[in-house]
């Protein structure tokens, strides 16, 4: 019997050595392959379920927070304001990743940011919560005003403080509810995602900073500024009064004013009525090089350094594109043809004029506080572009005041506060047009600049921008200013 028991012992040893070999294989040799396996959501779940700070508005409204659930993800991300701040906060989805502030400030929210770590070295042993809360520059009040003013018309509203680049409101329509996308039941998440992505109105698209439109006549503030920087004055030249402008290199093409109107005159006058023929002529006179440089100086062809993901670059063609295509140059000078701008870019162009020629870097983060409320990071204002001199900025402001006083933007005027503005109407074909407004106030010491676009409005006329977009801009300015 003893021989058999010995052999049994050897068999046991062999079997347990086999277990050891298999364990070494799984836990060491193949560990990396298993960890990286497509089906292995272990790390992703861990990342997804770690504690996460809240996001709140400048006026103290929580717009994103985590609540304990006790399921495998442990905490659920909630967005109490639903679609109102969806394009700012973004969503936090297990299957589809994250967007917005959730993405750009992930390290701060989860406590991975360096400053947080340095602060919490002493707390390491205590395993304290070292998540942080992000406070936005936006207020719920202004966001609501902008959203309500826009209503259910596709479009976007961006309001900035031109003095420091703080985004005050960033509203667009349609938006979406980030709650279902951040849910834990991935069937719900996928169904919602499929519905949102199939929607031809693109509710997931943050129109304010990721969509590009023809800027139309609002681009004339860039053309006019570039003209002023290159010898054009408020009196000279006087552009001839025309209904249409014959275009060079076009074989007889002409560029017409809206509705066949006749216009011309010096710069303040043509800006007030948004005279296409005159600005097209100005573009031709400046030449491709100067107009392109002017647009670049205002931030075209560069993505604004906004602290949100995938900010769109606004487009203006390179000078070489116009060498054999003067009609394109003329049309680009009035914001048509190949010019495309995001609402954010047009707000920044307005901000440069409002802020003595300096566009400040736009941002939505005001400050980051640790879980005990101590401020650990504040956004430091930073100059982004300096397209024009303070003198040119003053001149532009005066002329834009004129647009409000006796031009196309009279409907944006506020009692007691001088508003400066420029309207825009960009033809899209189909007999509709995007209607624009860039405005800031108070003109003498601007505190708010707002850019508004409403997509695909019927009735192509230069006045349209003044009619459709102006009340929205006006409402936002009024709400944003302390004593309007």
């Amino acid at each position, binding site marked *: *019997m*003893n*021989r*058999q*028991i*010995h052999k*049994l*012992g050897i068999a*046991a*040893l062999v*079997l*347990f050595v*086999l*277990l*050891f070999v*298999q*364990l*070494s294989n*799984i*836990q*060491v040799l*193949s*560990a*990396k392959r*298993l*960890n990286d*396996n497509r*089906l*292995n959501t*272990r790390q992703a*779940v*861990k990342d997804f379920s770690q504690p996460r700070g809240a996001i709140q508005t400048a006026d103290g409204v929580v717009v994103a927070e985590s609540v304990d659930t006790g399921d*495998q993800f442990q905490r659920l991300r909630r967005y109490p304001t639903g679609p109102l701040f969806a394009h700012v906060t973004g969503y936090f989805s297990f299957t589809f990743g994250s967007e917005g502030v959730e993405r750009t400030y992930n390290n701060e929210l989860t406590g991975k940011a360096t400053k947080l770590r340095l602060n919490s070295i002493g707390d390491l042993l*205590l*395993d*304290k919560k070292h998540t942080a809360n992000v406070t936005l520059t936006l207020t719920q009040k202004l966001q609501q005003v902008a959203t309500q003013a826009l209503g259910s018309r596709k479009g976007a509203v961006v309001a900035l403080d031109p003095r420091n680049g703080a985004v005050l409101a960033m509203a667009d329509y349609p938006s979406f509810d980030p709650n279902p996308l951040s849910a834990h039941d991935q069937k719900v998440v996928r169904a919602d995602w499929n519905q949102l992505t199939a929607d031809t109105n693109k509710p997931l698209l943050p129109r304010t900073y990721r969509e590009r439109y023809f800027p139309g006549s609002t681009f004339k503030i860039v053309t006019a500024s570039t003209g002023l920087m290159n010898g054009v004055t408020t009196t000279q030249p006087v552009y001839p009064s025309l209904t249409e402008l014959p275009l060079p290199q076009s074989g007889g093409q002409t560029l017409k004013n809206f509705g066949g109107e006749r216009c011309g005159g010096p710069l303040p006058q043509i800006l007030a009525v948004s005279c296409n023929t005159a600005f097209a002529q100005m573009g031709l006179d400046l030449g491709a090089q100067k107009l392109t440089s002017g647009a670049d100086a205002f931030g075209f062809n560069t993505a604004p350094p906004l602290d949100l993901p995938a900010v769109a670059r606004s487009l203006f063609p390179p000078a070489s594109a116009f060498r054999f295509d003067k009609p394109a140059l003329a049309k680009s000078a009035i914001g048509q043809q190949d010019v495309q701008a995001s609402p954010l870019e047009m707000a920044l162009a307005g901000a440069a004029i409002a802020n003595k020629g300096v566009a400040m870097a736009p941002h939505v983060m005001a400050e980051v506080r640790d879980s005990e409320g101590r401020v650990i990071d504040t956004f430091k204002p930073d100059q982004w572009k300096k397209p024009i001199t303070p003198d040119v900025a003053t001149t532009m402001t005066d002329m834009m005041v004129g647009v409000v006083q006796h031009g196309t933007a009279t409907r944006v005027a506020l009692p007691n506060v001088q508003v400066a503005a420029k309207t825009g109407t960009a033809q899209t074909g189909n007999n509709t047009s995007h209607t624009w407004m860039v405005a800031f106030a108070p003109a003498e010491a601007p505190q708010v600049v707002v850019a508004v676009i409403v997509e695909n409005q019927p009735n192509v006329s230069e006045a349209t921008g003044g009619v459709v977009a102006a009340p929205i801009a006006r409402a936002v300015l009024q709400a944003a200013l302390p004593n309007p």
Partner: protein
Amino acid sequence: MTAIIGAIRRNTELGLMILAAVLTVGAYVLASLGRTSSLPANAGPFLGIVIGLFVIAHVATRRLAPAADGTLLPLAALLNGLGYVFIARLDHTLAGLQAVWTALGIAAFVGTLLVVRRTRDLERYRYTFALIGIALLLMPLLPVVGRNINGARLWVRVGSVSFQPGEFAKVALCIFLASYLVERRELLAVATRRVGGILVPDFKYFGPILLAWGLAMVVLVAERDVGTSVLFFAFFLAMLWVATARSAYLLIGAGMFAVGGFVAVKSFAHVHERITVWLNPWPLANGNGFQTIQALFALAAGGIFGTGLALGSPQRIPEVATDFIFAAVGEELGLLGTCAIIVAFLLIVGTGLRIALRAESPFEKLLATGLTTIIGVQAFIIIGGVTRLVPLTGITLPFVSYGGSSLLANYVLLALLLRVSDSEATRRSTVAAESVAA
């Protein structure tokens, strides 16, 4: 002499028990640190209970089996303690129950040592044990008390108490088999009949074994409990082979296993499914292969050193507190932790077989062999199943997994091993003393 051996062994046991207690309490404190930011409020009482139970078990061996081996109880205590920490970390409700089961397990351990004072007491009641074993196996199939849980019918519910009779049946049948085989081993070793060219033992002697074996197999197949079937098959075969020293039994057994396995794969969907998952779980990642794959991910996440107690996410594995607790250990304690578990089982098996080698009476030899084989095979098939070394068969990891029946049965088994150990050590020292006196 007995007193001296006893003193040395009991002091070794005491030292190792303290070590097991320190490791358990340390692991518990660490696990609590990982889950919450403060020290556990119930660390004091917990420490008291653990040490109290360990002290009771130790004092019981001092009184009732003073010369028994001193390493088995501390090894079981370590596995039990570590298992408890993991269960507490995974599920608070189960933790409370497991604490009760542990207390009952220790009580069963003490009770067994108390009742079974001499191994020949067991030998005398062999057919009683056979009947008890078979009855226990059949119980889950009874209409009123039997319960189907997770597709296997191996539970019995009486009033509000559920238990798995199979766990106790293995001990009962092991006792029966040991005594029966010892009595008939010579007859079984001699082949007297020729069936189709092969010499086989007389069916008259072989019959009862085949009956018990066959019945166990049929019952287990009817209960869809693959793990226990394999366990029974393995220890029946090992005991038969050790008793008769005839390798032909191993060959016949292997043949039967192959045929039985083949038939099972062909005719039972759940067996077929297990084999499919074992061969390649990846295409079934969200279906039948989910558990296996999640266990592999957990083990891989642990690496060499583990994520740290309570810092992994083993709760993603279904049945992690019972059959798959080994994967949780692998995730949070790493290869070091899993090796510690393997070594602990290897030490138990080694010690058990050493007890078998030293035992004088063939019955004690065979009993110790059988009991040790049960622990070893059970540990191997579940660890091998979790690590995909062998097809997965649902069975508990002795002393570690959550489960009252399993814990109680294994403590009874442990007590029987210690009883055999005590008896052989007492005999040896008596012989030595006599030779000195002479």
